[in-house]
């Protein structure tokens, strides 16, 4: 019994000391270092207008449905692109609901972008990402959306190609991961083009 009490006392003291070190000193030190060295990233890579309005984060997808914008991947986060409840669909390979949704997305994608039946639709365009906030689409997906956006904005295909190129995040260290087009940044660039004199 006395042994148990000693153990209890040591356990409580050790818990308290460790809380101070790993839940106090450690995160605060990381916080200080992060805010000093990488303030932009540490605060959410925010996109802020000249008047100080936060318009989003470079890393988080937003919903775009207008013709003149590139569209992100479908999202299962909350009611769509909800930054407070990131989530995938979690539907399995034999789910009827998933198969129906994918088929409907394929049809809608073909209709919106005038993609003929003979051309397969890029998988990323009709599947929901793991987070529901995936900021990227594949390059193939962007190129299929290009004619629609060019028409809606009266821009030359060539100019749009250049912008897509510019807003494509390459593989890290040229080998890791897959390249993707950042939809939000691309659309911001398009709007900036329009408002420029």
């Amino acid at each position, binding site marked *: 019994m006395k042994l*148990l009490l000693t*153990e209890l006392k*040591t*356990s409580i003291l*050790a818990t308290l000391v*460790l*809380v101070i070190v*790993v839940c106090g000193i450690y995160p605060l*030190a*990381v*916080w200080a270092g*992060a*805010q000093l*060295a*990488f303030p932009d*990233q*540490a*605060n*959410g890579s*925010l996109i802020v207008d000249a008047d100080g309005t936060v318009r989003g*984060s470079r*890393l988080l997808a*937003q919903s775009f*449905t207008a013709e003149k914008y590139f569209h992100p991947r479908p999202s299962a986060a909350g*009611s*769509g692109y*909800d930054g*407070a409840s*990131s*989530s*995938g*669909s*979690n*539907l*399995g*390979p*034999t*789910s*009827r609901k*998933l*198969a129906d949704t*994918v*088929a409907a997305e*394929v049809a809608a994608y073909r209709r919106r972008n005038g993609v003929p039946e003979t051309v*397969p639709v890029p*998988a990323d365009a*009709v*599947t*929901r*990402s*793991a987070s*529901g*906030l995936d900021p990227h689409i*594949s390059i193939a997906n962007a190129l299929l959306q290009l004619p629609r956006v060019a028409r809606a904005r009266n821009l030359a295909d060539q100019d749009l190609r250049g912008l897509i190129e510019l807003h494509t*995040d390459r593989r*890290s260290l040229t*080998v*890791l*991961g*897959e390249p993707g087009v950042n939809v939000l940044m691309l659309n911001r660039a398009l709007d900036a083009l329009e408002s420029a004199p």
Partner: protein
Amino acid sequence: MNHSNAWLQFGLFVLSLVLVTKPLGLHLMQVLDVRGRTFLDPVVKPFERITYRLCGIDPEQEQSWIGYTLSLLMFSLVGLLFTYFVLRFQHLLPLNPQHLPGVEPDLALNTAISFTTNTNWQSYGGEGTLSAFSQMVGLALHNFTSAAAGIGVAAALVRGLARHTASTIGSFWTDLIRCTYYLFVPVCGVFALVLVSQGMIQNFKPYDTAKVIDSTPIQVPKVDEKGQAVLAADGRTPVLEKKTVETQTIVQGPMASQVAIKMFGTNGGGYTNANAAHPFENPTPLSNFLQMLSIFAIPSALTYYLGRMVKNARHGWAVWTTMFVLFVGGTLVAWKFEAAGNPIHQQAGVSATDGNLEGKEVRFGVFNSALFATITTDASCGAVNAMHDSFTPIGGLVPLFNLQTGEVIFGGVGAGLYGMLIFVVLAVFIAGLMVGRTPEYLGKKIEAIDVKLVMLVLMALAAATLGLTAWAAVSPWGQAGLNNVGPHGFSEMLYAYSSAVGNNGSAFAGLTANPADGDVRYNLTLGGGMLIGRFFMIVPILALAGNLASKKRLPASAGTFRTEGLTFVVLLLGTVILVGALTHLPALAVGPVVEHFLVKAGSLF
């Protein structure tokens, strides 16, 4: 799909893993020896001394296996209660700018158990449920201590093997403190900053609200003042109402400090619901690569530690090789099936060359998602960068099978090594039976009591996994939590209990363990599974460690079974696969295997 690039990434990962194993293993030898010296001594030693003084710990005082077990259990209990109350009262505690309410008792208990046992199963939703304080204090404490305790148990078992006619197996307190101070805090401090450079957040701000660029109309279920969904006249279909989305919430908080230890300590509990798939929690392919490497770093280094401590480096590498073969096999299978994609969707017009991208992120692609899924379940990490629930049947079978081997393929920090050593003892025993000699392992006679302890662990884990799955499968509450029906629904339950008992924490995440109607049975059964999986393993293993330490060492003779080289690796591989497969194959056949054929036939549920 660029296959040559994927092979290149795989090669790079393997190379990095090999390169960190020895240096980290050497560091571990110093950390796990109370008189060990590291380059961190000038800075850290004073903190270590003060800690011992404040807690009344005598660092020179070693413990018997009973003392070690008692300290570990008491410390776990105190930590569990601490987190339970932090979660329950988070609305009264600081750093809660979202004014999130206190966590419900069953969810708080499930989460407290989940983190105490190094499982980090997420019944909670992350950004929508827990305050920054709950994350940083309630959860992160266990990210460090449960990992340190795991390493401690592995070290105790290795000491049991390395010593002879000894009565002690080290001190829990010095293992705990030294692992935290000399290993986790320094490495994670640097790692966290690298993650921030890639785009991970680390701040104490309230969530931001962004004014979105293209406000979009959506249809959402209408709710009344009480927050209940309004139903149409038929009493089932929810009434929809039109809304325009004008804003987006942007999660903020001290994420990087927590994610660093979440990966390095193979914890896996996400700051956000989507875990390492969330763009903040895993911003770039580079952060993804480093996170994968950090899962395997310590478990891999511990095999080196084993080899050096028992003065048989080749034995350590033999164990490493066994783990490595299983890891490569799992990765290749998962990758092949994810790259092939889902034929049902491809018939609907989806490109067949893209693979299965449902529940995956573009920046990682199919290969990195399959690799991450294999690594996180080989180890007892449980972080995910893609949704396993939406994997193809065989792609999802790989993580499930990995869980069911007991996560010994590198495994959790500490847990992987002591889990694998269970199989080593079993393999040596089987070899002994085959040649008709008393089995010996590293000069220690393996006797009836040792084999009984090993079998107790293996049977307790399998019985808990399969028993709880069976219970859920035949109960209304079990079926109510499912997101998928048919064989995939069964897989969701099987995965949940395999993950809980294996202390992994990843999920076929469609399963709702925390239903809106407040049914507590998933939270409680999963919590029970996690406790069994952690302590029904640790206590027999410490007993085994104590028993091994007390034995005499016999000199090797011509008849001694050699625990290095190819024969041993093959025997160990066979033991892991056979025990894992024979125990769980029937259940796997009813879940993913049958689903694989149903996908081919185009059946939907």
